[in-house]
Structure formats: C-alpha cells, structure tokens
C-alpha cells in the first residue's frame, strides 16, 4: 500500500500528523532535484494516469512544450471531479489525506515550472472541499504553499475550484472550460491541454490519485515504484469497490493483482450468492464475466478483455442482477450527463434510454436489440468526447454479453404490437 497506507490514522488530515508520518519529505527531496530529474524518476516509475485513461504520466509531461518554445505561465490541475457511478476513492482520499494530494500537486508544478496549481473539486463534494481548504490554510501557514517553499526558491500558489456538479466537468478539456467560467462543453483536441490548456496556456491535468503517487516516487525512487506493479504499469491502483460485496470500500492493490483477490478483500460476493459480472473501472467500462476472476488488474490486461481499468470503480454484480436494468441505469446516467454539445451523444443516449425503459416496462419489440445495436454503432467513434463513445461501447458490450436477457424483453412484444394496432384501428 502506498497512498492509503495511513488512511486509518485518525488525524492524518492534519499537517502535524501527516508530517510525522513522513509527509512533505517527498516534496523536500523533489525540490532538491532538478525538474528534469523528477521527470526521469517518474518515467522510470511507469506511473500511469489513474483518472481513467491510464496514459503514462511521464509521456504526458513530455508534451508540455519547453518555456523557450511556448513562453508564458504553466498550470497544474488536480482533477477531483470524481462523478462516475461506482467511483468514490478520490473523495475518501482528499478527506483523509488532503496533504498527500497537495504535496503531489506541488511536485508536479515544480517539475513543469508552474507557479499556479489548482484542484478542481466536484460540486457536490462539500466535505472533501472543506478538508482541502483547511489543508491549504495549514500548508500556507507552514510555508509549504506560496513564496519560496521550504526555503528552496520555488514558489507556487494553490487555488481550489468547485465544479458545477456535472460529470462532464471531469473530462480535462471540459474542466478547463468550467475553470474559465464557461459552460463545460468539452473542447475538441488537438490541441491537447498540455499545449493549450487553462486560458490557452500549457496545463497538466492529473487525477488526484496520480498526483498523490508523486511524493512517494520522489522519496523512494522510480525504480522502487515500478517494481511494485507490472512491467508496463508501475505502483498500485486504488479501487472503489461496491455492489454485491460484503465490505464495500476503498482498496489499494499493486497493479496486476488478480480481480479475485480484490473481491475477496472486499469480503466476497454478498450473501454468498453466485457472481454474474464485474464492472472493473466505473460504469463507463464494459462488464467482465464471472469467469474473468483471475484477470490481473492492470490497464493492459483489462483492455485485453475488451474493457478498461478506468478509475478503478469496481462494481460486483451477483446472479440476481438484471443486466438490462443495469445498462439502463448506466445509459440514463450518461444521457442525463451528456453535455448536449454533439448530436450523436445527446440524442443517441436519450433515445436508447427510452428504448430500454420501454423494454423494461414490458413493451419491448422484436427489433429492439438490433435497433439498440445499430444506434450504439451510430454513436461510437462519432462524437466530440469519450462520453459519447461510452454510450455506444457500454451498450454494445451488454448486448453482446447478455443477449438472452435482452431477447427475453424483446420477445414480449408481438402481443403488445397487436394490441396497439387494434387500439389505433
């Protein structure tokens, strides 16, 4: 365990306790290094972004243009918008260890030469926001934020911003629009935020869990971190485990840990019932089957199974789960959260939501599964951002994995159609 190690320490959120347990030593070490040396440690660590895409962190840092090429300020943003159903680890994290996030944020700022850093917090996250506010105050008083941090000549300010309470604000380009005071309609890259970010300046956006790994990498070296995980994914993954398990909660495991071990740590399937499926990374990731329990949980292995590690939001579904209802709930969420900017996502999500609703109400038609499949195809890969892709990808995955459940609902229709015909005649 790296970042959740002291989570049970009751006063970890206080600066004194955090420092007693080794906090801000990573920052101290980092400030003794050259920015390029930190980037090199991160490269060696094989740290990947934990916010969903699993993009190698060092590679992302490498796309921040050098100051002589693109002059002007640079920014770092910690992404704590965490709004995907099944994901709650960032909330627990910033409530319990806000300083760990701040420390990581400052290290990233130092590495790319940013003098302003931000944490963007989900609108509904009141308690995490207060925890961070207190932590920032403490750190500022202790000269860990502001001018000449730790007397090492590096200055960086930290500002907290709250989102408007929309899922889409978690997407980096939409988050930047929101920070600029606009509606969070995603931008269409290229250019990517590391080139054209906040107010048009190079901006590094990382999930807060990714940032929290940096103090440990700075303190103990990239190689140490890399050894914990798999050859391509260093360190650990933080999971929010929920659904039909005995002990839902936040768990940290080395990259590559089999899914079975994680579910067992969470007390196994609730009530000892049989397992039907596991959503591995939050509701936007396709479900794994009951026989995928030995799958090593890292970005590439889960991808090999047609799904994503995502943000580690594991939802365990037992044999009683109605998969059509599950996917309807997911699509309902996506259609509610679609920003509305592009047509396939906005209309495809609400249309398929209504079809699923109708099927579950007992008015399914024979053509419904095929139509869902077709509409999903017209959305996937046709939208501005990944939310739209999610609509199509998730729908197709459930249709493919649980065709009988859809067919059963589509089968009731003939009579309904006849009734309609009579009524209309």
């Amino acid at each position, binding site marked *: 365990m790296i970042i959740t190690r002291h989570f049970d320490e009751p006063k970890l959120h206080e600066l004194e306790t955090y420092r007693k347990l080794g906090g801000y030593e990573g920052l101290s070490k980092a400030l003794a290094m050259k920015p390029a040396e930190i980037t090199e440690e991160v490269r060696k660590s094989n740290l990947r972004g934990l916010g969903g895409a699993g993009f190698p962190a060092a590679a992302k840092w490498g796309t921040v243009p050098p100051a002589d090429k693109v002059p002007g300020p640079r920014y770092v943003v910690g992404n704590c918008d965490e709004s995907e159903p099944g994901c709650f680890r960032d909330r627990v994290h910033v409530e319990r260890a806000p300083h760990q996030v701040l420390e990581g944020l400052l290290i990233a700022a130092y590495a790319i030469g940013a003098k302003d850093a931000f944490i963007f917090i989900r609108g509904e996250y009141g308690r995490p926001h207060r925890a961070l506010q207190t932590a920032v105050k403490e750190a500022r008083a202790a000269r860990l934020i502001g001018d000449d941090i730790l007397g090492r000549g590096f200055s960086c300010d930290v500002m907290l911003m709250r989102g408007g309470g*929309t899922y889409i604000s978690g997407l980096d380009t939409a988050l930047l629009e929101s920070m600029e005071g606009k*509606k969070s309609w995603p931008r*269409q890259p290229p250019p990517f935020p590391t080139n054209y970010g906040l107010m048009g300046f190079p901006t590094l956006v990382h999930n807060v869990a990714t940032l929290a790994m940096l103090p440990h990498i700075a303190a103990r070296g990239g190689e140490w971190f890399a050894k914990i995980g798999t050859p391509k994914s260093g360190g650990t993954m933080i999971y929010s485990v929920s659904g039909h398990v005995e002990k839902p909660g936040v768990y940290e495991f080395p990259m590559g840990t089999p899914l079975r071990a994680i579910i067992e740590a969470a007390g196994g399937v609730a009530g000892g019932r049989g397992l039907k499926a596991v959503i591995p990374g939050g509701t936007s990731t396709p479900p794994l089957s009951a026989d995928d329990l030995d799958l090593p949980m890292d970005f590439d292995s889960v991808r090999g199974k047609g799904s994503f590690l995502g943000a580690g939001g594991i939802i365990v579904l037992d044999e009683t789960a109605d998969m059509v209802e599950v996917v309807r709930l997911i699509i309902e969420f996506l*259609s*509610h*959260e*679609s*920003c*509305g*900017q*592009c*047509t*396939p996502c*906005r*209309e*495809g*999500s*609400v*249309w398929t939501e*209504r*079809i699923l609703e*109708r099927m579950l109400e007992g008015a399914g*038609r024979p*053509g419904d599964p095929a*139509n869902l499949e*077709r*509409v999903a*195809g*017209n*959305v996937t*890969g*046709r*939208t*501005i951002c990944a939310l739209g892709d999610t609509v199509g990808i998730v729908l197709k995955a459930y249709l493919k994995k649980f065709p009988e459940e859809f067919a059963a609902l589509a089968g009731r229709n003939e009579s309904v159609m006849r009734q309609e015909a009579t009524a209309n005649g």
Partner: protein
Amino acid sequence: MARITLNGRPIETADGALMIDVAKEAGIHIPHYCYHPALGNPGNCRMCLVEVQGAPKLQPACRLKAVDGMVVRTDSPAVQAAQAGALELHLVNHPLDCPVCDQSGECGLQDYYMTIGRYKSGVAEDKRHMAKRKPIGPHVMLDQERCLWCTRCTRFLANVVKTAELGIFGRGHGQVVDLAPGKVLDNPYSGNVVDICPVGALTDRDFRYKVRAWYLESVDSVCPGCSRGCGVQVHTSTKRPWHNEGRRVARLKPRYNPEVNGHWICDEGRYSYKTLDQDRLGKVLRLRPAPAGLSAVGTELSWDAAWKEIAGRAGELMADKGAGGLAVIASGALSNEDWRSFKKLFVDSWKVVQFLFAPEPDQVGPEDSLLRRKEKVPNLKGGEALGFGTEFRSMSWDALARSIEAGRIWGLYVVDRDVAGVWGPAAAGLLGRLDFVVFQGPFKGGTGDLAHYRLPSTAYVEEEGSFTNFEGRLQRYAKALAPLGAALPDWEIFEGILARHRAGKGEAL
C-alpha cells in the same frame, strides 16, 4: 501547397485548408449544420464525417486540415452510413411538423433526408416537447423543439454582432436555446439568425405563414438602404397575390458578397421591402395643387403629353426668368443610369445651377462598424463621379427655403425626395409660391400633392441598373418585378423631357 486525393481525384489545395471547403471548391457538397464559413467549426453536428486513409475513425471534414498526401473519401459506404446515422439522430426528437413549419422547402433536415437519408424511421418513442412559438424579438420567432443546437445563432450573436442575446441553457437532451435573462433579440442585425438557422427553429415573424418558400422567385439585387449596398436577393410572390397580403415582394435575403457584406444584411435593409407597394404612384398627372390637407385635383396625361408640357413650360420660364431660378432636388437614390440622364437634362441642356442632393437631414441615420453606413441612400458616389458634390455643390434646405421666400426661385424639380418631410407644414406655403413644380418618384409622400406635375417612377426592384457604393464599387441590380402603372425608370423620364425640349427648340429656331 497540399496534394490530396478526394474521391479518387487528385486535387491541389492550400496546406491546412479545411476539407469541407476544399470539397466545396471541387463541387462536392459535404453535409453539415454547425459549420458556417463565417462562424467557425465547432464540429458538434457530426454530419460531415469523412473517411481519411490511415485514420482509425471517421473525421469531421469541417475540422480536417488538408495535408500533403492525404487520401479522403466522402462517398464510401461507411461515410454514407455515418452521415445517414447522424441525420437520423438529429431527427429522433425533431417534431416533424413540416406541414405547419415555415422553413419547409428550404430546411436542412428535409434536404438531407432526401439526399442522404431516405431510411425507414426506427423511432417508436415519444418526442420531447418544448416551447413552440416564442417571440424573442421584433423580427424573430423561436421554436425550441425544432432546434438542432448547432450553435450558429449563438455564435453569430456572440462573435459577429457581439450582443449575445441567445444562449443554450440546461444540459444534454434537456437543453434549450433561449434568450439570456433580461435580453431581447432586437439588435440591428437580428434577422440574420433566421437565415443561418438550418431549420425552422428561428423564423421570420414578418414572413411567417405568408408564402411557401417554393412559390417564391428570386432575383439578385442590391439593397438601396444605405451607401454600403449589400448584396440581396429579392424574393417575390406574384403568381398568388392572395398569399402575401397583396405585397409582391415577400422578403429580402442577404446575397453573399465577400467584398461588400459577407453573409449578412441589417434589419433596416431587410425589412425595407415591406413598404415597397405602399403609397405608390402609377399615373402621370397634371395637378392643380390643393389647399393644405386636401388631395390635388389632377388630369391624367400620356407620357408624351407630359414631357411636351414640362419641356415647354420650363423652356418658357427659363427664357423669361433665367435658368438660375430653377432648383432641382435629387438624392443618392438615383442609379448611375439615372444620374447620367439627370446630368444631360439639367446641367448640359437646361444649365441649372441650384441643386440639392446632400443626404442631410432626411437621408441619414445610424451607422456602425459592421455594415450600416450613415448615408441612407445607395448611390451618392455615382453622382459624385459626374460632379454632383464636387463640381456641382449641394445647397442646404435652409438656403433653398430662403431663396424661395426671397423670390429668387421660380421653379422646383423634385426627384424622389419628400420635401414635406423636411420642411414640414411650411412646405405647402413655400411650394405654393412657385410657378413650376414637378414631383417625380415612386412614392407619393407628402410632396406628391404639392406639385404641378406628378410623374411616377419605378422602385429599384422594377428596373435594372447599377449603384456605386461608398467604397466606389459598382454593383448591378436586376429587375425583379414589372413597374406599377405607367411608372418609368427616372432616366427614361429625364430622356423623354430632354428629347421634347430639343425638339421644341428645333421648332422654335
């Protein structure tokens, strides 16, 4: 320079040119709603997806920049399926109320359904409902249900007019286009949103339910509303006079001209057609000027008779009292053709020296940095080219009134200008002192009853000609309608008088 292959055809284009423009240039239309050459490419409608060799996904052509060696297809089965799919998604919640929609016949949804759609609808769900008729300004009606959220209107108002009256409120499928709190869409360019809205979400309150788009005929013209001379199309409805409250012109639409007006026109110009058929003159009349408030009693003349009488009477008076006592009021409303004959008659032949054509005070109005010019007539420059404003100076209205009062003026020839509008009630008294008053114009106005001769001339839509705008650009306009009654173009009237004047002199000599 980028050498690309478009649907198998080698094409050379500028590096970084947008594929949607490159294709258009090559005669290939790529469907789109949100893209507009003057409003940018948000890429939100996803109608313009095309296939790029080597790219894993279809790419929006409105954001695809041409790169040397690029191979693009706009006609492959994958592209056709994607475009039809995007169209279908636009229509899922669209009310399909075409029979009662004013956009019918010129709607982006109808057009693409016929060209790239033609699928069988798979929609069995209820449609979403929103506000159907919401007046959002003096000229524009909003139907929220029909909106595609292409953001053309919001971008136009935010970036071109910079007034930002409209916004998209709410999120996802629940969002609506609406007025920003406390705003009304009443800027001087509001009508343009109707043109750029690809569907019937924004319709013209004046045009609504007057004529079906397919009954209209269109002629290219130039707006005479100010010295910018914006390109316009005159849309007329003549075959079904019961359709447009009897008005022959149903609407004006901007005609794209990158050198003059781009894609836009102002509301003043756009709605200027409404009065085109009102207060019109159609008869050639000799009048006994009426006492104030009453209509003049007139005798109808043939053009030939009128020309002879006017030439004769003016000739007598000039011989008797001298040409210096005749004043001519005209304006930049004359076409270049009119100005030429105007000069032949009044300067070369009659040797008139008293002119008034300055636009103040009745032909000036608001101006701005987008299109509108202060001078509310189209062709001051055309007059200037012949010396009106340089060699021949314009007197002021005050000076003219003083000259009349002092008895230095015996005659007045007014071309399409409402003297009564400037002088007010004093006009009748002033004109009453004169021996000879001719009024010529398309509209009667307050001056039509104060003259000895009233000559009907054509409105600009009833003649062809050219205007020279404030930048010196010569622009032709075509004839959209037949003249009303006996009306003739101004130049023809001048030429008629001139011919009789010469003939008269010949006889006299």
